[in-house]
């Protein structure tokens, strides 16, 4: 395989961002591990998608095609699976996805007001991302912490007993975390 750019070999991150139709070395390595333990290749479909989404945030058409080719299933078969699950994003999402719970227990505890507060704070509606690409707002139903309602999951953290006044502070906290990670 030709590598004509010897000065600055593309990093995994660059590839992930700039070449959606190409899997990074690390991604390929991870998929290879998945395939090694599978009963049959199509069995790793969901895990493969989640694995690649970890580094890219979402799965584009080109990335889907690349994954399909790597694991040996058709594009249609893989997309059939990808479009079924709500934690696999087939549209771009921002750096942090906010999942306020919109289940009945959280709504009973005024959870809708928390959602509205986030909406107002960021100037976006449900399903949208804000312009600085910091947050996407995707409510999820029942996050399994009903005794601490209202709750929200974002950046793998579970925020409990959220009061409307706490929303700006929570958002800032998440922004800081993201900045530290980068």
């Amino acid at each position, binding site marked *: 395989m030709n590598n004509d750019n010897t000065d600055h070999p593309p990093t995994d991150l660059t590839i992930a961002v700039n070449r959606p139709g190409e899997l990074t070395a690390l991604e390929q390595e991870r998929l290879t591990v998945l395939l090694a333990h599978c009963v049959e290749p199509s069995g790793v*479909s969901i895990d493969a998608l989640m694995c690649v989404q970890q580094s890219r945030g979402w799965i584009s058409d080109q990335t889907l095609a690349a994954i399909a080719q790597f694991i040996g299933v058709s594009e249609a078969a893989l997309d059939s699976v990808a479009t079924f699950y*709500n934690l696999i994003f087939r549209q771009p999402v921002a750096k942090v996805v906010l999942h306020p719970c919109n*289940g009945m*227990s959280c709504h*009973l*505890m005024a959870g809708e007001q928390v959602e509205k507060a986030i909406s107002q704070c960021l100037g976006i509606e449900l399903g949208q991302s804000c312009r600085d690409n910091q947050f996407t707002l995707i409510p999820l139903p*029942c996050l*399994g912490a*009903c005794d601490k309602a209202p709750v929200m999951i974002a950046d793998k953290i579970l925020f409990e007993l959220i009061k409307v006044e706490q929303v700006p502070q929570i958002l800032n906290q998440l922004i800081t975390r993201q900045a530290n990670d980068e």
Partner: protein
Amino acid sequence: MNDPTPTITPPSKPMTRFVDGQQDSHRLEQYQRHGGYLGFKHALTLTADEVLQQVKDSGLRGRGGAGFPTGLKWSFMPQGDDTPTPKYLIVNADEMEPGAFKDRYLLEQTPHQIIEGLLIGAKAVNADIGYIFIRGDYYLAIERLDEALQQCREHHLIGSNILGSGFNFEIHLHTSAGRYICGEETALINSLEGKRAVPRAKPPFPQVSGLWGKPTIVNNVETYCNLPHILLFGVQWYQSLGRCKDFGTKLFGVSGRVKNPGLWELPMGTPIGEIINEHAQGMCDGYQLKGFLPGGGSTDFLLPEHLDTPMDYDAIGKIRSRMGTGTITILDDKYCPIRLVLNLLKFFAQESCGWCTPCRDGLPWAVSLLEKIERGDGQAADIEQLIDITKFAAPGNTFCALAPGAVEPLQSALRFFLEDFEQHIEKKCCRYRQEHRHD
């Protein structure tokens, strides 16, 4: 490995006694200090049939909501030399039932208890491979289970020739990519196979042809958590714990406008009123109990008049509801019941896998009607339609239990809160919105 040998008093709260609020209470050391893995070690000295018999004798019923006798479920798995292998044993940790939060507790706080339960189950049915199918957003639980499995491997509790016994069992942790329907056991199996989580028709049952066509059993997290104690302390002890026909303890929870929402391990058959008024300390000031869902969003509403009823499968069944997950959701008198039912039906309509007609097309139809009524555009005929839909999606009419569960809160709300429906239609508005400033 630390080996605590002193005799342990049979506990009254077997599943939660490991949790003391300390940082490491979920780890192996803490678990073993309280007798962890002793039940499994005892099981290793028995034959598979003996272990299975103990589980059958205990009368343990599945804690996922259906309440099917666990021992009986396991006995359907074919045994013998020419049965297909590998055999699979799966933990259903895909808790997503609205109002349910009990499995999260067990997964985060007592991961080893689940693993031990799984190991005992594997011994009973001669399973070869185990999966813990956990929902992808239970991040803390995933981290802790991962660590727990690693610890177990290091201590030869998982893998080949476990503790030198010759028994082999490997456990994999699998995180799901969302969707409520994955909690349905056959849909879960399809998801494990990398497919869309559409349920399968039964028969054939998973015990005969399940994951990859092989014999498979799926049980709930809490069900497995009962097993170490049954094996360690015995069937008699277990049966002494219940306050009714059903045995053992159960994690009961309350959420909503109560003073102390939470989760408690209590004997099976504890009256609902006791759970709500004593453990949850009753309604918050300024709120009255209007009704409640006894076991999650897919159970029928009950009223204050039912507070005396013991929380066990049969008693709740007799009053036309279900114990379900045992986590109670309180409907207070300031929240519009239609709004609550609408929230639930929206959830179920959204979580439909899209396979069968009554669920895929019937539930959105109900949502559309409820939305109309809730915002004040409803008509009397809409109630007739809603009643028709609840009959349409009755058990047996659909491919799986999602839609029948979805219409349980709806049919009971129509029965108990008909006045509210009629008021919305007549007055063309929601009085709760006006009076209590919902928005």
